[in-house]
């Protein structure tokens, strides 16, 4: 079953604005990862945040994690047209030594120039 659920499902903003996407999950996790996917291509790893971390930055990206609420957010500041993509959160599903990721449904971000 789906572990993560992103909202909104779709987001349209103007270039230069900030974009915030949220992710909720159901069970305990070791870490949460955010990925970007352009036009049905492969996934690009953006950032990993561990369960004992609350906030992490990478360039224009800021990720927060609230394990008490089982939620995470991805903030993209000063968005650019090139940020147009689908964004997925994924959580590890620790099971018998395997750690395949379970993905949310994704947020489709459109940045309008």
């Amino acid at each position, binding site marked *: 079953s789906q572990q993560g659920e992103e909202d909104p499902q779709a987001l349209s903003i103007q270039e230069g604005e900030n974009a915030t996407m949220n992710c909720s999950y159901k069970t305990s996790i070791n870490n949460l990862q955010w990925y970007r996917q352009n036009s049905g291509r*492969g*996934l690009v790893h953006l950032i990993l945040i561990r369960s004992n971390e609350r906030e992490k930055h990478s360039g224009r990206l800021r990720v927060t994690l609230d394990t008490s609420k089982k939620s995470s957010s991805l903030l993209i500041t000063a968005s650019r047209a090139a940020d147009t993509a689908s964004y997925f959160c*994924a959580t590890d599903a620790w099971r018998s030594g395997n*750690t395949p*990721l379970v993905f949310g449904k994704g947020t489709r971000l459109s940045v309008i120039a």
Partner: protein
Amino acid sequence: SAVISQKPSRDICQRGTSLTIQCQVDSQVTMMFWYRQQPGQSLTLIATANQGSEATYESGFVIDKFPISRPNLTFSTLTVSNMSPEDSSIYLCSVGGAGGETQYFGPGTRLLVL
């Protein structure tokens, strides 16, 4: 990090035929994962492939439909058998995730079944 390549990058197939997708990693890895992404949907794990053992399939996926090979620590194949239009998806292989580390994905194989 890991560099992953997949072949073919895309294909158009007739129903009833089979397609084998190859995944090559630039380093030795214990586990490789195969995902499916149906149009407009998220990624769903098909199976986990360990070298030297049978693949472990997720609920809803069976070996007869998606046979997997894992002949060594850098290579795996996924076959989509007896294809139907419902199999039209992007298929992605992935490695990593051990110890809660980053998981990396190949570029995907876009399959269209007519």
